[in-house]
């Protein structure tokens, strides 16, 4: 079944600085949207508005035609990977899996090459990269229709990123995924649609030349 997430008429300012103005973005099941943009263009802000934890001057969010003010309050609709670690460090990954997915899903993690041997440790004993990987895998395995990933590759070793990318693509068969990261090569590799936040609006990106035209890259 195809699900559709739409966000429309988003306007957001910080003091007098207008960050987002009249944004429209649509994501369907099967899509991995790579949201690019220079520092301070409002990528994280847009994802938080979409999740429902950031206020906006105006916004209109629909999932499968139903309007939500705070989508995160709806069960199994949307989940969000924040830029900073959000898992409770005093709990073990086993306990976190139990709370998020149920004990029966622990098997998905037990043979994992990156964190399989660390499940009984406390989460705060995992390295930054291991924790980030665990957070992403946890969210992807939740029954939510849409997953928002804010800088998923930050602090993760290239070899682990190579494990993550096919995992993201696999889960996109049943979910819609929006991700943003400054590691644009990995974003271009994993996403199947690209957008650039520029001057408060969204530009659709078809080729690397478009990224040069909008000042995101110096050369293609």
């Amino acid at each position, binding site marked *: 079944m195809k699900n559709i997430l739409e966000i429309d008429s988003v306007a957001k300012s910080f003091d007098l600085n207008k960050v987002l103005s009249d944004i429209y973005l649509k994501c369907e099941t099967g899509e991995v949207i790579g949201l690019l943009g220079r520092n301070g263009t409002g990528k994280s802000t847009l994802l938080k508005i979409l*999740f429902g*934890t950031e206020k906006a001057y105006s916004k209109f969010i629909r999932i499968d035609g139903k309007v939500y003010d*705070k989508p*995160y*309050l*709806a*069960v199994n609709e949307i*989940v*969000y990977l*924040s830029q*900073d*670690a*959000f*898992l*409770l460090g*005093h*709990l073990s990954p086993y306990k976190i899996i139990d*709370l*998020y997915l149920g004990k029966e899903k622990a098997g998905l993690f037990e043979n994992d090459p990156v964190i399989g041997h660390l499940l009984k440790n406390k989460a705060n004993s995992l390295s930054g990269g291991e924790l980030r990987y665990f957070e992403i895998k946890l*969210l992807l395995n*939740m029954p939510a229709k849409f997953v928002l990933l804010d800088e998923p590759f930050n602090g993760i070793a290239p070899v682990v990123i190579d494990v993550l990318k096919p995992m993201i693509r696999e889960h996109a068969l049943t979910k819609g995924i929006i991700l943003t990261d400054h590691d644009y090569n990995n974003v271009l590799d994993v996403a199947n649609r690209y957008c650039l936040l520029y001057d408060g609006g969204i530009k659709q990106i078809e080729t690397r030349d478009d990224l040069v035209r909008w000042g995101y890259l110096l050369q293609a």
Partner: protein
Amino acid sequence: MPSQFFRRLRLLTVFYKSTLEISVPVSFIMWPFVWPNILLGFGLGLMSIGTVFSLLYRDLTHKNEYYFYYNLGIPRFRLIAFCIGVNFLIGITMICLFK
């Protein structure tokens, strides 16, 4: 759904337990300034200054951990209300038992 209810209750309990590391020591240290009896002072402290300190501490040092609960559909105000409610119940019980 009962399973959803119990799952949320478990998560609220996880949050509440995480506030105890601050609320209990603060209430214990502050009891002489709240009431001359240690048990009543502790109960009243837990209801007031202990709750406020523990929630402020979480907001200042572990703010991002609220996303742990947001991803499971639990808003911040519900976590705070649960924490205040439980501490209030414990405080009232101690006052009733030891006054």
